[in-house]
């Protein structure tokens, strides 16, 4: 017989292993004053802010950036010529003031004085000229499209730049509140060439320390920040691809802010006394591209039938628990072009839809294939749409495509319908022109309505805000009548935050601005 002593010894070994591995953690870790662990072992009194991002920021160089996650880090690392305030209005940032000629073709910018890049280089008119040239001419630049109406940039004196436009372009200042307006150090670019993305230098409140790809970006306080005293010593952006894990890390104190919150995790944040949820409408929209150039959606009535059959209020309730706004236009609250009456959805009317199907030559309904990208949220969205349309005798075949393939399919126009939206920009033109004007870069739905083109092109050259708003109102009405694209909802920005973080102001572009943050 195997002795009882040996049995007991072995049982203790099993238990001991588990306890040894789990039980030796009590309070040995680096802790902050609240007794919670931190991701970095801070030196005494060092204030560290940890921000959780959904994905790895791929490029620290705004010239080649195409990712939202980059933009979160840029908000700490870089300044721009102009910024957006909490109302969504454009305000000067590195520019002190500006003037624009009545014909809208010449902008004169006065620059802030005494600003220095992190490497000590002075920020002046030459630096602005250098950045424009780089964004407009660099072979790999992703900013060319945004700046294609700029004809020339001239240095008037050290603090003054004159920008000549090829034609009036109302969204120009708005473009300068994003990546095209970011000022990088000319010296650093010349020094590092295409390695600049690994050695970024800006004028922002924080200085680049390191990036471990796929894991974190670390920044430290800019002691000489031109725009006030920075209170946090170190900011870490940490990548959490798993949304639930990210929320738990916010709860455990490893993270102070998270860039987005899965809807199903909202109760976990709301139920935690130490946390707060910032839920605000973003600037973007989600909807369906209906391919206007091939059957079945080259038929206006069938497009309208699908558009009218989507119950936007129900969709937002079911999928987002109310944390999204129903949409029928590209424009969100706070946008110059926002029109509440136009954006308010009507519930589907079965008789109307039946009539549209009959007019479209499909009185008994029809089938179409809808491409969606592969994420659990999108699959749910697809299923909900399928159900809604089925009630009106419209049968949807869902097909999942990986995101990259979805974009490519959209480019080529090889689809009947496709679910893809837009993250949104400050100026209405940036959320509209390239998506609805004939043959523009993001017009995957092959929308081609001459009158619409005319209105949108006129609006981008119109500097008078009231007139511009009226033009967009007309354009949005026309697009709705034609059902060129089926807008469904405006996504919310859902930031989770520890209540210890103070000084946060929400700005409608949804980016986490850290310059004024403090941590108790």
């Amino acid at each position, binding site marked *: 017989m195997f002795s009882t002593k040996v049995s007991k010894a072995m*049982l203790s070994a099993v238990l001991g292993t588990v306890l040894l*591995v*789990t039980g030796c953690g009590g309070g040995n870790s680096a802790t902050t004053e609240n007794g919670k*662990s931190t991701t970095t072992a801070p030196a005494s009194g060092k204030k560290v802010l940890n921000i959780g991002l959904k994905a790895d920021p791929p490029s620290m160089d705004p010239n080649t950036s195409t990712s939202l996650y980059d933009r979160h880090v840029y908000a700490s690392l870089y300044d721009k010529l102009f910024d957006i305030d909490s109302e969504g209005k454009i305000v000067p940032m590195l520019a002190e003031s500006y003037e624009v000629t009545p014909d809208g073709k010449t902008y004169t910018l006065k620059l802030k004085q005494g600003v220095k890049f992190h490497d000590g280089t002075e920020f002046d008119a030459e630096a602005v000229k250098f950045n424009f040239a780089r964004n407009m001419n660099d072979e790999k*630049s992703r900013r060319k499209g945004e700046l294609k109406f700029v004809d020339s940039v001239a240095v008037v004196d050290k603090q003054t730049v004159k920008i000549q436009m090829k034609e009036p372009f109302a969204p120009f200042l708005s473009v300068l509140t994003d990546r095209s307006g970011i000022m990088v150090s000319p010296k650093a670019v010349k020094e590092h060439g295409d390695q600049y993305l690994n050695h970024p230098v800006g004028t922002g409140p924080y200085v680049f320390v390191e990036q471990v790809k796929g894991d974190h970006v670390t920044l430290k306080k800019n002691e000489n920040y031109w725009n006030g005293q920075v209170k946090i010593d170190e900011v870490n952006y940490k990548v959490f691809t798993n949304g639930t894990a990210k929320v738990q890390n916010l709860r455990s104190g490893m993270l102070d802010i998270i860039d987005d919150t899965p809807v199903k995790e909202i109760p976990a944040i709301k139920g935690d006394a130490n946390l707060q949820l910032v839920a605000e409408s973003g600037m973007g929209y989600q909807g369906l591209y209906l391919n206007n150039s091939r059957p079945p959606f080259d038929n206006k009535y069938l497009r309208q039938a699908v558009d009218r059959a989507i119950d936007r209020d129900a969709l937002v309730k079911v999928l987002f628990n109310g944390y999204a706004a129903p949409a029928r236009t590209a424009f969100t609250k706070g946008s110059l072009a926002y029109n509440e009456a136009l954006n308010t959805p009507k519930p589907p009317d079965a008789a109307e839809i039946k009539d549209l199907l009959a007019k479209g030559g499909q009185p008994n309904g029809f089938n179409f294939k809808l491409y969606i990208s592969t994420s659990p949220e999108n699959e749910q969205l697809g299923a909900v749409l399928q159900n809604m349309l089925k009630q009106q005798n419209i049968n949807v075949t869902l097909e999942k495509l*990986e995101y990259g393939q979805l974009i490519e399919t959209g480019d080529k126009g090889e689809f009947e319908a496709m679910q893809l939206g837009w993250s949104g920009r400050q100026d209405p033109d940036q959320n509209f022109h390239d998506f609805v004007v004939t043959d523009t870069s*993001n017009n995957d739905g092959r929308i081609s309505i001459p009158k619409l083109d005319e209105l949108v092109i006129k609006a981008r050259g119109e500097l008078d805000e009231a007139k511009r708003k009226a033009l967009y109102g007309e354009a949005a009405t026309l697009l709705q009548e034609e059902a060129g694209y089926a807008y469904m909802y405006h996504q919310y920005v859902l930031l989770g935050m520890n209540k210890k973080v103070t000084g946060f102001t929400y700005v409608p572009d949804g980016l986490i601005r850290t310059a004024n943050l403090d941590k108790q």
Partner: protein
Amino acid sequence: MMFIVRRLVLTIPILLLVSIMTFSLIHMIPGDPARVILGEEATPEAYAALRTELGLDQPIVVQYFSWLGKVVTGDLGISITDRVPVADLIMQRLPATVELTIGTFLVAILIAFPAGILAAVRRGTWIDYTSTFTALGGMSIPSFWLAMMMIIFFAVENQWLPSSGYVPFSENPTQNLMAMILPCLATGLRESAVLMRMLRSSLLDVVSMDFIRTAKAKGLNEARTILGHALRNAMVPVVTTSGLMIAGLLGGLVITESIFSIPGFGRLIVESVFKRDYVTVQGAILVSAVLVVLVNLIVDILYAVIDPRIKAGKGAGE
């Protein structure tokens, strides 16, 4: 020694085959890397220029051989999205995964051995049933769920352990070990169940053999019989399972790495696939294949040590 050399030579065609398969697979993934890299706002000119730069406009055979030529000299290429050598990226990510693998394996054997031996020796008793039942449970629980529960219990509710916060061992050993406890436990518990069941059944086979009965008849006490004689004979399938386990862990810890935010090798592969950074994917998969081949080699050598009857070269094939 000859055996090891022979085995090493054998790995060359295997790795070549892996490289061809990897290369073909990557290029079969739908979606154009240039399109993905440039995003939705690209001009046609930029798109064409990038395709040329990446060599995507060349025939696939030409692309493959130019890549292979560099690999032979140790150059895995420059990452498309990160603009740093792929070899550097891999070296940055491997340590975390190797550490996680070792930790997981340690947890697994520390639990599996005592539990497996007990279950075999006490066959049919409550100890056996409890161990087997627990093991079945352990195998059935999804590791991501277990990981999440552990985070909630150990890090959120009680704050005994950090919920994330990997730092390299060389930078801060204490913090590194603290951050590794939960991930190693979460994956190790599951793997221990697999090992424990394997060890139990293997031991039961051996215990019923003649030489064990002889040993017992000679008056050898049970503990010595089991630990001294039976266990060594029961180890062959356990070593096989362990080898497969380690090989699988080296590339397959991506879920654990994601949940605990560990910058590991598995995540690097998955992220690179999504970013269409196929230069990194090719390099990483090749390195992964080399690691698997190495693990297999070690397993084969161990066979020979455990059981001299196994003729070298006739061990587990790849």
